[in-house]
């Protein structure tokens, strides 16, 4: 059955048709033969019955008049019947009356019956049921038939005929032969027909199969099966074609999508591989799962060394804790963290500054499985920032230099003038002193001449000693003042720049601001009045003085510029720069207010950005406030912000923590400014 199931549909169809037609043929032949045999049988019975009837009628008189000879004569007519085996007439009493053939003795008949072993049969042969109807019995080779002989309503006896069934069998044989021949021929015809006709069904299916095979082997989805009919097979082929069209369309779409995906993938891969920044993915324990070349480059390890390695291996404990804290925060908050800086140790042992952004990686169910991050080596940037800061400092000092020179020049000039005055005065005084010496010598000699006294009087008159006596102390005091001023400026400059101080020292903020104001005097004095209100209770604040001063200087210079933009350079009308300090307990606050034009709304958010400037090229680097921000927030852990009103001026507010406790400061950082560190 399985092998049949696996044979081709052609053979199957042929086989099914053949089987069906053969079975139908066989059945119909069997029915036909059977029917014919039945009717033959019944016609045989009928014939024998008629025969028996005739014999009965014709032998009735013989029985009635007890003439067995006559009966036997009648029976002898049976000779004409070719299959007659024997016949027998019993009389009313059940005794054998006549037989055919003649020599068949009654005893023989009995023996034959007893041989048959059928008691009922024997009984009926001995005592035929005369009153009941016909009785017949088919045996293997013969048919026994009994018929009562009824004459004029009286049962005279029974006739018993045994006829051979040779005719039946030969007929059966003939039928079988005919059936075999007919079936053979018909099956042959059925085979020829079915093998031709099955193509109607199998043709389209095989065509479909071939098309399907071609499609699947050659991936030619543009191929279509030919429809040959509008029946279910046609529909099947339509469906197949439709499916192909669908597949073709989808393949095209998929190809397009794949192309797009490949391009996109390529693009992102290229981006990922070409960016300077490192991209990495770690599991929750911090082990690297995926990373780009830049991470290798930054860390100095090969991909093999990095894969599976823990991200905290490449840093000291302090930084590892920092990273741990940052990732804990991202994990807890469930959202990405902005860049935080930490220090890693490269394979070659060199420490590098890294800035990293972390975000969570989740699986489809939303479980947090790890982190992804972008890291950037900011060592150079940091160095550049330091350099920039230095440059800024130098620039501001340079900028200040002219003003400071001017400041120094004035006292220097009049100190010089005074000194030259002293020089001139001294030569006159020297002449007077020479005359007084001559006079003294004359007095000693006692030869005081009138001309001598008049000479002295003349020179005193000439030199104008009275004037000198009045002016020189004035000049001296003025010179001392001038020198003091120069000295103070020089000291302020020295204090301002604080060369060589790299660590925080506790300083008096008021004094530091005063120094800066002094140093910058030339920047503001033409445009603004300086209103200073220092809080005398201000504690000492740990500070990098040079950098702090630079911040104050930047703000004052910006304030001056802002005011100048409003009032115009060198005009008689001046603005106000108000500098206040306040003791807030744990912090000190410095407020520097100007009466400038304020900061335009659209740039307010950008003023602390590096390289952002509103000033003309060459006048500003765009680094001032960015560096100020960096100095206050990063180096001092303070806050710098501003308040501004258009046309009314701006106020910059700086707050510095009084305590210099790193732990407290870090904690504070996390609370207020998570990305500062």
């Amino acid at each position, binding site marked *: 059955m399985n092998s049949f199931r696996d044979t081709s549909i052609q053979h199957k169809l042929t086989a099914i048709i053949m089987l069906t037609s053969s079975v139908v043929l066989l059945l119909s032949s069997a029915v036909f033969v059977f029917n014919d045999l039945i009717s033959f049988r019944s016609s045989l019975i009928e014939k024998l019955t008629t025969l028996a009837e005739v014999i009965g009628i014709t032998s009735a*008189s*013989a029985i*009635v*008049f007890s003439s067995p000879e006559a009966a036997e*004569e009648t029976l002898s007519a049976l000779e004409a019947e070719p299959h007659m085996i024997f016949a027998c007439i019993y009389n009313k009493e059940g005794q054998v009356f006549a037989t055919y053939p003649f020599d068949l003795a009654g005893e023989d008949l009995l023996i034959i019956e007893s041989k048959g072993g059928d008691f009922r049969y024997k009984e009926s042969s001995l005592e035929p049921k005369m009153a009941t109807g016909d009785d017949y019995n088919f045996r293997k080779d013969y048919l026994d038939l009994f018929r009562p002989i009824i004459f004029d*309503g009286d049962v005279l006896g029974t006739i018993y005929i045994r006829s051979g069934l040779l005719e039946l069998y030969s007929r059966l044989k003939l039928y079988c032969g005919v059936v075999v021949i007919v079936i053979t021929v018909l099956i042959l015809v059925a085979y020829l027909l079915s093998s031709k006709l099955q193509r109607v069904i199998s043709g389209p299916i095989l065509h479909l199969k071939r098309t399907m095979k071609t499609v699947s082997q050659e991936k030619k989805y543009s191929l279509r099966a030919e429809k040959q009919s509008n029946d279910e097979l046609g529909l099947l082929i339509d469906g197949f074609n439709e499916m192909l069209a669908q597949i073709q369309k989808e393949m095209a779409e998929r190809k397009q999508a794949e192309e797009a995906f490949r391009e996109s993938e390529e693009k992102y891969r290229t981006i990922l591989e070409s960016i300077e920044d490192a991209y990495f993915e770690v599991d929750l324990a911090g082990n690297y799962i995926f990373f780009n070349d830049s991470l290798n480059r930054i860390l100095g390890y090969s991909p093999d060394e990095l894969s599976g390695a823990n991200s905290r291996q490449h840093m000291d404990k302090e930084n590892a804790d920092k990273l741990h804290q940052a990732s804990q925060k991202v994990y807890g908050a469930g959202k990405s963290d902005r860049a935080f800086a930490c220090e890693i140790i490269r394979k070659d042992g060199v420490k590098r500054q890294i800035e990293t952004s972390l975000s969570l990686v989740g699986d489809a169910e939303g479980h947090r499985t790890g982190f992804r991050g972008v890291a950037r080596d900011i060592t150079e940037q940091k160095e550049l920032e330091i350099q920039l800061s230095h440059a800024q400092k130098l620039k501001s000092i340079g900028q200040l230099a002219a003003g400071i020179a001017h400041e120094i020049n004035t006292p220097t000039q009049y100190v010089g003038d005074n000194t030259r005055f002293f020089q001139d005065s001294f030569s006159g005084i020297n002449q007077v002193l020479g005359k007084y010496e001559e006079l003294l010598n004359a007095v000693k000699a006692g030869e005081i001449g009138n001309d001598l006294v008049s000479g002295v009087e003349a020179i005193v008159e000439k030199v104008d000693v009275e004037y000198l006596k009045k002016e020189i102390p004035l000049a001296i005091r003025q010179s001392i003042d001038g020198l003091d001023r120069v000295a103070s400026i020089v000291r302020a400059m020295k204090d301002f720049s604080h060369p060589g101080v790299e660590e925080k020292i506790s300083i008096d903020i008021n004094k530091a601001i005063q120094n800066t104001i002094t140093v910058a005097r030339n920047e503001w004095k033409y445009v603004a009045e300086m209103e200073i209100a220092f809080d005398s209770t201000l504690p000492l604040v740990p500070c990098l003085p040079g950098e702090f001063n630079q911040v104050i200087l930047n703000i004052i210079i910006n304030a001056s510029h802002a005011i100048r933009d409003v009032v115009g350079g060198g005009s008689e009308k001046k603005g106000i720069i108000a500098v206040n300090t306040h003791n807030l307990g744990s912090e000190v606050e410095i407020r520097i207010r100007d009466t400038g034009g304020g900061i335009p709304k659209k740039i307010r958010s950008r003023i602390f950005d590096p390289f952002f400037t509103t000033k003309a090229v060459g006048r500003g680097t765009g680094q001032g406030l960015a560096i100020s921000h960096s100095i206050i927030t990063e180096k001092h852990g303070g806050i710098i912000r501003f308040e501004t009103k258009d046309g009314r001026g701006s106020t910059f507010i700086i707050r510095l923590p009084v305590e210099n406790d790193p732990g407290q400061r870090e904690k504070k950082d996390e609370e207020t400014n998570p990305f500062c560190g």
Partner: protein
Amino acid sequence: MIIKIYRLILIAVICGTIASWVHAQPLSSREHLIKAAFLYNFAKFVDWSPESLPESNTSLILCVLGQDSFGGALESLEGKTVKGRELVVRHTTRLENLDKCHILFISASEKKRLPEILKSISKMNLLTVSDMKGFAQEGGIINLVKEGSRIRFEINLDAASLSGLIISSNLLKLAKIVRSQDRKTRK
């Protein structure tokens, strides 16, 4: 009703008589019985004309002319049916009473006046039967003859056709066919 009771009694009496005869005189009574049966059976093979035996007539009348030599065997036939008709047996000695008969058994006692009898009934549709020697040749239709232990019969076809009777070939084939001695003269 009375007739039926009478008949029943008669049959019982006859049966009893026959039974006693069969025991008492087995040989003669057997011959009588066979002859009586023959008489009865002849009726089955003979067709009468519709005039003498119409459909409506339910009885077939067997007349015995002369002395009843059957020794009561004939009475056993009484009430039997032939061709759907009841068989009635009548005894008579007079020829005038024969016009209703269908079968006429002429007893040997009438041998002397046989020609007279035959002549008087020659035109009647009447089956004449006898057991006299030469009866058929005399012009009787069926004559019962004894051959050894068996009873056989002779049939005079001419006499039969004269009487307008049709005798079945089945009967004829059992019979010995004889001709009337005075056939020519009769014609």
